[in-house]
C-alpha cells in the first residue's frame, strides 16, 4: 500500500526543459549541381519519395533555397555534413 508523502513538490514552468525547436537544414541553389542529382541526394539521404524530393529540388531551383529537414542540432549537423559531402551547398539555421 502506498503511503502519501507529507508534502508534494509541484513542478513549475522553471523546471521544464528549454523548448528545442531544432535546426533547419537549408540547401541553396547553385549553378552546377544537376537537378536530377539533387533529387537523388534528397532521396538517398532522407529516404524521401521521388515526389517530395522533386518538390524540394524545385524549391531550391526556383526560390533559391529550401529547408530540407529540421532536427535536433547534432542530427541536423550530420545531415548538413552529408549534403556537403555530396557537393550540395548546405547550411544550418535555428528553426
Amino acid at each position: 500500500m502506498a503511503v502519501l508523502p507529507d508534502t508534494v513538490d509541484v513542478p513549475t514552468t522553471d523546471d521544464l526543459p528549454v523548448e528545442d525547436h531544432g535546426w533547419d537544414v537549408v540547401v541553396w541553389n547553385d549553378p552546377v549541381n544537376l537537378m536530377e542529382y539533387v533529387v537523388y541526394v534528397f532521396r538517398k539521404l532522407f529516404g524521401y519519395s521521388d515526389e517530395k524530393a522533386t518538390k524540394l529540388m524545385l524549391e531550391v531551383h526556383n526560390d533559391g533555397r529550401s529547408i530540407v529537414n529540421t532536427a535536433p542540432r547534432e542530427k541536423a549537423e550530420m545531415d548538413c555534413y552529408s549534403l556537403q559531402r555530396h557537393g550540395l551547398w548546405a547550411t544550418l539555421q535555428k528553426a
Partner: protein
Amino acid sequence: MHRFSPHPDGVMLTLFPEEAEALVMLPEMLDSVGEVPGDPAASRLAVSAYPDDPDADAEFGDWLGPQLNIGRAADRSAVTTSLEVARTEPVVLSMEEAEAWLLVLNEARLTLAARLGITEEGWSDDQELDDTAPPLAYLTFLTYLHGELTTVLLEKL
C-alpha cells in the same frame, strides 16, 4: 555507348581508352584544391555550415572536417583503383564504388566550375564560353558522365 549502365552487382563502367586516360588526372586535380592561395574551388568544397556564426562553424569544422577529408580521399582511391581496370576492359563497380565515382565526378565538376568562374545558371548553353577550351570541354565531359551515373543510381533506389 553508355559509360555507366545497370548491372545486377552494381554498375557497369565502360570507357574508351582515351576517356580513361582523361579521367586519370581527376584525383590529382582534386588533391590540388587549395594548394594555390585564392583557389576558388577551395571555398566551394568547404562550405560554411554556420555562415553567421564563426565559432559554431569552427566547431563544426573541427568535428566533421577530418571525416570529410577521409571520405573524399577514400572516394578518390576507389576511382583510381577501378580506373586501372577500366583502361583496358569494362569493370563492374559495387554500389559503394559507384557512389564514390558519383561524388568524385561531382567534386571535380564543382572544382572546374569554380575555377572557370561559373556563377550563373545556363552556363552549358552560354555561347560566350568557348567549349573547345580544355577546362570547359572537360567539365562538359564530366557532366555527361555524372548525369548518366545519376540516372543509373536513381533507378536502383
